[in-house]
């Protein structure tokens, strides 16, 4: 494990038809950066990021806003993952950049921003901003990108990068 730079630690790409794509890796880095591109979905759906196969409604909360509208909150009891944005769509989202803090025995603070809902020059993309928590104190060592009600089009992908400060 390298301590001095960002390293690519996982990558997955949809062949088409998957309800979720999974990026496994082994080392549990202190800081994670996840880059997501969604080429679209078969039916209108909302994407979520989940960690370590946790699809329960116990550990997640999040708030997300499109184009600076009042954020939509999702909390434990309902949230089954970090909902990247609200409002079901079949459309493409060009790039979502998520940062995750990943120290042992802490909850995980999460922030993200993205260029979503258009990959056509004729339509300006929307801006998504979000904040989230994965309350579990275990370290994230695997990420899942899932749709709530549909399947991904081919070439949806997720790349994960990690870096360590090396103190824990």
């Amino acid at each position, binding site marked *: 494990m*390298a301590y001095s*730079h*960002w*390293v*690519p630690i*996982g*990558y997955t*790409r949809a062949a088409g038809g998957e309800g979720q794509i999974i990026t496994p890796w082994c080392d549990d880095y202190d800081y994670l950066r996840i*880059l997501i*591109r969604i080429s679209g979905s078969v039916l209108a759906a909302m994407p979520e990021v989940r960690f370590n196969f946790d699809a329960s409604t116990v550990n997640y909360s999040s708030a997300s806003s499109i*184009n*600076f509208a009042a954020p939509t909150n999702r909390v434990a009891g309902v949230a089954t993952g970090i909902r990247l944005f609200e409002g079901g769509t079949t459309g*493409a*989202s*060009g*790039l*979502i*950049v998520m940062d995750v803090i990943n120290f042992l025995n802490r909850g995980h603070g999460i922030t993200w*921003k*993205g*260029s*979503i809902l*258009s*990959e*056509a*020059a*004729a*339509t*300006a*993309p*929307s*801006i*998504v*901003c979000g904040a989230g928590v994965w309350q579990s104190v275990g370290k994230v060592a695997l990420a899942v990108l899932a749709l709530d009600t549909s399947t991904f089009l081919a*070439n949806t*992908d997720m*790349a994960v*990068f990690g870096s360590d400060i090396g103190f824990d």
Partner: protein
Amino acid sequence: MANSLWVPLDYKIAVGTPSSIASDRFDAINYLRVFVRIAGYAGGAIAQLRFNGDTGTTAYSYRVSNNFAVATTAVAGAAAGIKVAQTSTVNPRGLLTFDIINITGRPHGIVWSGSDQSELAATAPEIVIGAGLWATTTQITQITLEAGGSTFIAGTDMAIFGMMGLG
């Protein structure tokens, strides 16, 4: 080229008062990060990023806001680049950080944030948030920062980093 490191691809700094600063050609790399600092402009303007020398109005669209104001949008037919902020100014833009996906055969999603309009402790900077797109599916191998019809003050600079990743 390292697959597992963010590597510096190019760095350019304005000397004199150029109307743009342009990177050299660099290798086609899957993920790009671009750090822009604008020292100021001769006249009020909004700089824009352009890729591979594309000055046309067919491939760019964006949405950008300062301090969460209702965003400015521009689409094909009008957009000739990715405007780095919403507000025209002669003031410095302290740091604008762009993430760009650059995988061959795909449009380029772009997101950025920035600390804008001030480099003085007496004046809080504005927050820039933007989302953009360059719809061309060839990989980016060159980036130009254009002054939006004005000229830059010396010291304006642009650093480009890339990582090949696992994709």
